[in-house]
């Protein structure tokens, strides 16, 4: 563990060192790529003015709502479709058709429907998360071991309690893996969405800094986006370690 951490710190310092050396030795002008010092200063200024906090909150707010809405609809739908073959065969072509359309392609429509503000961004995050979640939930239900379903049938579990007591918990480990991957995508999409659909957030911070020709702020914004992405991933990983989830890893 200590080795890992030391290794990480070393790589981090090396990257900083090369960044500084390359920009200084080759006289890379500020507008092409800023120096580490400029970026640190920009980070500090934005942190002090509260802009960094405000932007992060705005981005996280949109991702949270878009993702929660997607999870609240996609997971129940996926559980249901995973069990009902007829409905699955009916809806699957539509889902497969809509899934590969990048959420960014929806931007013009999102703007037309919801105008500028939080709502189009939330809508785009919803789209980015909904389809992958439905598809993975369906496949996780199909992967449930027949034995568990037989036991449930044997004990007379039916209807809602069959879903809440057996199907959901049995599918949950795979669903949580899907959540982790999808949340990563959602975080990618929010930055792009905020560059267009809304006037605040980290994506907007970057595009606005570019428009003001402040490359130091652009890079600072990129760093913040990366760090928050890491934290989100870490938090979802914690879910994978819950005792009622962990079994699927143990079996492998």
């Amino acid at each position, binding site marked *: 563990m200590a080795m890992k951490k030391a290794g990480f710190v070393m790589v981090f310092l090396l990257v900083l060192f090369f960044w500084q050396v390359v920009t200084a030795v080759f006289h890379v*002008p500020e*507008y*092409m790529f800023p120096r580490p010092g400029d970026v640190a200063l920009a980070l500090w200024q934005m942190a002090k003015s*509260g802009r960094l*906090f*405000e932007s992060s*909150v*705005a981005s*996280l*707010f949109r991702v*949270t*709502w878009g993702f*929660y809405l997607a999870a609240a609809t996609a997971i129940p739908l996926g559980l249901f479709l995973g069990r009902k073959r007829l409905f699955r065969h009916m809806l699957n072509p539509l889902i497969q058709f809509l899934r590969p359309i990048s959420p960014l392609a929806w931007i*013009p429509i999102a*703007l*037309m*429907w919801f*105008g*500028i503000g*939080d709502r189009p961004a939330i809508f785009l995050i919803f789209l980015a998360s909904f389809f992958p979640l439905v598809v993975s939930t369906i496949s996780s239900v199909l992967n449930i071991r027949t034995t568990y379903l037989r036991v449930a049938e044997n004990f007379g579990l039916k209807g809602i309690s069959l879903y809440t007591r057996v199907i959901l918990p049995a599918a949950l480990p795979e669903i949580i893996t899907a959540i982790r991957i999808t949340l990563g995508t959602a975080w990618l999409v929010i930055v792009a969405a905020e*560059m*267009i659909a809304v*006037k*605040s957030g980290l994506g907007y911070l970057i*595009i*606005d*800094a*570019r*428009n*003001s*020709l*402040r490359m130091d702020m652009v890079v600072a914004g990129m760093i913040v986006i990366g760090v928050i992405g890491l934290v989100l991933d870490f*938090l979802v990983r*914690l*879910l994978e*370690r*819950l*005792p*009622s989830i962990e079994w699927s890893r143990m079996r492998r």
Partner: protein
Amino acid sequence: MNPLKLFKNISPEAAAPLLALLWLIVITLLHYGVTGQTHTKQRLKVGYLPITCHLLLPVAMERDGFFKENVDPIRFSSWPDMIESVKGNELDCAFILAPIAISLMDQSVPVVIALLGHRNGTGLVVAKNSGISSVKDFVGKTFAIPIRYSTQNMALLMLLGKNGIAVDKVNRVELPPPDMPSALASNSIDGYIVGEPYATQALIMGKGIIFKNSSDIWPNFISSLLIVNKDSLSKKRKLIDRFIRGLKRQGKWIEANRKKAADIGADFFGLNRDLVEQVLTARRVSYLDIVPRQRELDEIGKMMVQWHLLKKVPKIGIYTSWQ
């Protein structure tokens, strides 16, 4: 540290959904607390881009108490985004390129023209190392324009026409204005035509020269207009009239206080002060004579038909009752 194990009496299984819910509440409260969005319907939403062509707005925001009370400026970074918002009835007013406004009217979007942004204020930039010394050298070169529906594009076409160069001999690409100076610096384009301060930016970076000012190509050049949504006009007429009068008043003040106006604009747009000062003090822009004239606008419409940007000239509506 594992946040799922923070609570002694609650199992991690139960803590996970609780924390998820708590997070939802916290982030929502923070978001509305921090951004303090109090949407009162009676405020005016005004779209703009950070270009000196739209300088009337920040100066009025700074100098006129009415604006602080009643106007929400909304910044865009590219024209297509603003067009979407205008079509979606999201904005009450917008500073927008004249040909776009005319094209919107052609598409029956309910807008009318109320004011001009300013006159001139556009520069044709060529890269220092492009070897261009006269218009003849443009052949085979790549020039960036803000968007097809811009008087910048039309001015470039006009210049080519005057010098007898066929339009398809010059490669034109659409770029958002803020991207143009860096595209020039990286040699991906040989020149561009754009509203200030992005022309002067190339001078400051030392990568380009201003080959021609808009006034050299097109006397009394018009870049942007202020358009008003007709629906908003019927609902908020008094506010809008007051808004337009307030803007118009700033024109004279800017002419008299160019350096101050430049600083206000630079801070508002998040641009470099020296850059905007240089644009304004070099008098490449004029904020007098910003009342729209039917004849001039019809003329632009006819040119758009000539360059195949329109099929026919639509009825161009001008809103005047604010006077």
